[in-house]
C-alpha cells in the first residue's frame, strides 16, 4: 500500500506535491529548476508493467500447467497465459494509476491483441496455403499441363492445373462480357431515370444481392441443363456466375455513380448537351475509377466462387477450350475436388490451384487499388499529360483557324470598302471567345481604328446575342449590306 500511495503522489504535478504540508498552504511553493515535460504517451512505467505482466503470467502458467493442474496442449496454454496476463497487467497498472486509466490500458491491450491475433491468423491462412502449394508450384508443369495423363500416384513433376486456369479465365471472361454492359447500363438507368420503375428495379437488385451463390447455381442447373437440355459446360458455369455477379455489380456501380457531383452534370446540361452526351462525356468519365474498382472487385468475387461452378461446369481432367461443350473446371472447383484424394501429390496440387487462384485475386486487387484509390476526376500523370497534349493541339488548331479567317477577312475588307464594320464585328465576336487568338486580333487592330470601343460594347450583351445562323458566316452576301 505504501508503494501505491508514493506512486500516486509522484504522478501529481510537482507544484502541488511540494506544498502539501498543513502550515505551508499559503506560502508560494519553492522554486524548482524547471523540468521539460515529456509529452509522449508512452512512459517507462508502461513498458515495465507490460513486460512484468508478460513474465509473471508466463511463470504462473508454467506453474499451473506443469505442477498444479492436469492441463495440457499449446492452445490451452496460450488461453490461460492470456487470461493471467490481463489480470497481472491490470494489477500492475492499478498500482500507480486510477481506475479510469486501468480500464483504458486494459481496453487498449485487449483491442490490440485481438486485432493482432486476427490479422496474424488471416495472414497465416495465406502463408499456409501458399506454403502447402509450394511443392507443386515449384514444378513448371503445374502451369502448362492438365491432368489427362496423370494419375493420383504420379509425382508432382507431371500433370498440372492448366485446364483449371484456362477454365477460370474463360468463365470469368464470358461472365464479364455478359454482366459489365448490362450491369453498368442498369446502374446508369437507376441514377439517371429515377422514378417508380427505377425504385422497383433497385429494390429487386438489392434483394438479389442476398441470393446465395449455390442457389444461383441451382437455378442455372435446373433451367439451362435439366429443362433446356444443354450439357454441363463452361457456358453454364459462366451464366451461373453472371446471375450471382450481376446484382453485386449493379449495386456497386449505383453507389459509385451517385457520388458524381451534381454540379458537373448540371453544368453539362446547362451548356446544352443532351442527356446521353452528358452521361457519356461527363458522368461516366468522372466515375470511371470507381466503376473500374466495382468491376474488379466483382470479378474477384466471381472468380473465387466455387458453388455455382460445382453444379454447372462438370468435372474433367482434360484441357477444354470450348466453353459450349464438355466439362470445364475452374481453379476453385479443382482445389475443392483434388483435396478429396488421399494422395499427398493431389492435395499438393489442390493447394497449388488455390494458391494460383489467390495470386489471381491479389493481382486483380493490386490493380484495383491504384485505379480506384483516386477520387472522381483526379488524373494520373499519364492522363494529365495526354490532356495537356490534346489541349495544346486544340489551341494550335484554333489559332490556325483564326489566322485563316483573318486572312479571308482582310481580303474581303479590301474588296468591300463601303461597309467594313458589319462582317468584321461578327468575326471578332466569334474569335474573341478563344483566348489563344487575342494575339492576332491585337495585331489587326491598328488597321481598323474603330474596333476598340465597339468590341467592348458587344461584350456586355453577349448572352443576348443572336444565334450564329442570324448572322450568316462570311457576311459578304448578307442582305443588310445591299440595303
Amino acid at each position, binding site marked *: 500500500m505504501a508503494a501505491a500511495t508514493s506512486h500516486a503522489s509522484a504522478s501529481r504535478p510537482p507544484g502541488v506535491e511540494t506544498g502539501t504540508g498543513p502550515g505551508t498552504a499559503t506560502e508560494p511553493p519553492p522554486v524548482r529548476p524547471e523540468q521539460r515535460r515529456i509529452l509522449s504517451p508512452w512512459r517507462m512505467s508502461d513498458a515495465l508493467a507490460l513486460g512484468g505482466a508478460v513474465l509473471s503470467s508466463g511463470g504462473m502458467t508454467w506453474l499451473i500447467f506443469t505442477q498444479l493442474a492436469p492441463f495440457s496442449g499449446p492452445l490451452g496454454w496460450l488461453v490461460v497465459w492470456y487470461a493471467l496476463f490481463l489480470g497481472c497487467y491490470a494489477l500492475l497498472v492499478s498500482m500507480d494509476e486510477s481506475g479510469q486509466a486501468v480500464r483504458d490500458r486494459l481496453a487498449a491491450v485487449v483491442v490490440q491483441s485481438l486485432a493482432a491475433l486476427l490479422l496474424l491468423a488471416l495472414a497465416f491462412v495465406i502463408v499456409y496455403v501458399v506454403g502447402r502449394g509450394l511443392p507443386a508450384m515449384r514444378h513448371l508443369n503445374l502451369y502448362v499441363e492438365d491432368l489427362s495423363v496423370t494419375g493420383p500416384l504420379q509425382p508432382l513433376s507431371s500433370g498440372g492445373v492448366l485446364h483449371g486456369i484456362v477454365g477460370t479465365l474463360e468463365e470469368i471472361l464470358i461472365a464479364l462480357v455478359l454482366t459489365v454492359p448490362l450491369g453498368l447500363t442498369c446502374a446508369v438507368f437507376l441514377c439517371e431515370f429515377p422514378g417508380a420503375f427505377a425504385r422497383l428495379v433497385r429494390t429487386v437488385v438489392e434483394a438479389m444481392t442476398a441470393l446465395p451463390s449455390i442457389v444461383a447455381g441451382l437455378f442455372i442447373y435446373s433451367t439451362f441443363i435439366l429443362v433446356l437440355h444443354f450439357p454441363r459446360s463452361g457456358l453454364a458455369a459462366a451464366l451461373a456466375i453472371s446471375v450471382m455477379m450481376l446484382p453485386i455489380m449493379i449495386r456497386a456501380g449505383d453507389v459509385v455513380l451517385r457520388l458524381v457531383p451534381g454540379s458537373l452534370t448540371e453544368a453539362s446540361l446547362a451548356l446544352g448537351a443532351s442527356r446521353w452526351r452528358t452521361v457519356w462525356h461527363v458522368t461516366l468519365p468522372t466515375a470511371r475509377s470507381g466503376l473500374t474498382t466495382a468491376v474488379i472487385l466483382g470479378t474477384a468475387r466471381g472468380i473465387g466462387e466455387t458453388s455455382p461452378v460445382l453444379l454447372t461446369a462438370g468435372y474433367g481432367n482434360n484441357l477444354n477450350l470450348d466453353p459450349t461443350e464438355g466439362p470445364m473446371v475452374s481453379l476453385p472447383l479443382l482445389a475443392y475436388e483434388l483435396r478429396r484424394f488421399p494422395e499427398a501429390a493431389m492435395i499438393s496440387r489442390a493447394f497449388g490451384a488455390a494458391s494460383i487462384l489467390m495470386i489471381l485475386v491479389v493481382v486483380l486487387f493490386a490493380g484495383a487499388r491504384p485505379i480506384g484509390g483516386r477520387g472522381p476526376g483526379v488524373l494520373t500523370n499519364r492522363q494529365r499529360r495526354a490532356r495537356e497534349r490534346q489541349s495544346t493541339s486544340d489551341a494550335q488548331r484554333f489559332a490556325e483557324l483564326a489566322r485563316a479567317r483573318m486572312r479571308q477577312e482582310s481580303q474581303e475588307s479590301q474588296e468591300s470598302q463601303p461597309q467594313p464594320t458589319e462582317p468584321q464585328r461578327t468575326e471578332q465576336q466569334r474569335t474573341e471567345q478563344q483566348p489563344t487568338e487575342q494575339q492576332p486580333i491585337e495585331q489587326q487592330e491598328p488597321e481598323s481604328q474603330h474596333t476598340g470601343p465597339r468590341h467592348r460594347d458587344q461584350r456586355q450583351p453577349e448572352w443576348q*446575342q443572336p444565334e450564329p445562323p442570324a448572322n450568316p458566316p462570311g457576311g459578304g452576301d448578307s442582305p443588310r449590306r445591299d440595303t
Partner: protein
Amino acid sequence: MTDVQVPQPETASPGGPDAPRRIPVTVGFGDRVFAGLARSSGAAVLVVMGVVGIFLAVQAIPALRDAGFSFLTTQEWEPSSGRFGIAAILFGTVAIGLMATTIALVFSVAVALYISEYAPARLKRTFISLVDLMAAVPSVVYGLWGVFFLQEYAIGLAQWLSTYLGWIPLFDMPGRDPRDPLGTLTDFKSSTFIAAIVVAMMVTPIASSVMREAFDQAPAGEREGAYALGATKWGMIRAVVLPFGRGAIIGGTMLGLGRALGETITVAMIISPIFEIQWNVLEKGANSVSALIALRYGDATSFPLSALFAAGLALFLMTMAVNFAASIIVARSRSGAGSEV
C-alpha cells in the same frame, strides 16, 4: 442586333401575368435511344432477377405442397420417401451462422477499432488494404486451411471446452467421458464449432471494413471534446466512437451473418452432414442448407430437386430478410453515410 434585345411579348402575356411560361422540351433522337436503352436494361435486369426468384418459388411448390407444414418441423431429408423437412438443416445453418457471427463480432470490432484508433498512421493504409484483400480471398482457400490446418488444433480446443465447460449445455458432449483415456478425438471433428470458426474468419473482414469506415467518420470535434473533458482514449471511444458507429456495428454484423448463412463450400468441406437437430455444437456432425444442396444436387430427380429448391428458397428468404434489415439499420443510423458496401 437591336431586334434581338426586344423581349418577346407573345410568350409572357397571353395567359395573364402569372401564367407559367411554356418551356418547350424537345427530346433529340439520341436521347430517345438512350432513354430506351437504359429503360430496357433496367427491364432486362428486372426480368432476369424476377425469373430467378419466381422460378425458385415455382419449383419449390410441388415439394412444399407435398410436405405441407411438416416441411418446417421434420428433421429427416428423404424426399423420395416423402419424409423431409428443413428443421435440422435450417437449425444447423442458423447455428453455424450465429456462432460465426458471434466470434466475428468480437474480432471485427477489435480490428476496426485498432485500425481506426490505435494503429500507427503509417501502417493504417496497409492494414486497410490487408483487410479488404482478406474479404476478397476465395472461400475455398479458407476451406482448405480449415480442413488441413485448423481442424487438428481446434479439436484440442473443443476437447478443452467440453472437459472444463461441459456444464454449459452448448458445450456438453453426452456419452463421452472426458477422463476416458481411450476416448478418441475424432468425436470432435467436422463439428458446427469448427465450421463456425472458419466461416468467422471469412466474414470478419467483411464486417470489419464496414465498421472501420464508420469509426473513421466519427466527428473530430466530438473526439476532441471528449478528450478536453478529461476522457482517456478508451473513454473517448466509449463515449464517441462506439455510439457513432453503433449502426455500422449492427449493420456490418448482419451483413456478415447474411454471408455466413449462405456460405457453401467452406461448410461443405468441413462438416459431416447429419439430419437431426444438433444442440451440442462441439460434436461431430452438422448441416447447412447450402452444403445440403452442394452435396445432394447430383442424385436429384425432379421431386427431390423440388425439395432442394424449397430449402434454397427458405435460405434465400432468410438471407434476404437479414440483408434488408442490415441495410435499413445502416442507412438509418447516423454513421450510415458512406459505409455502404
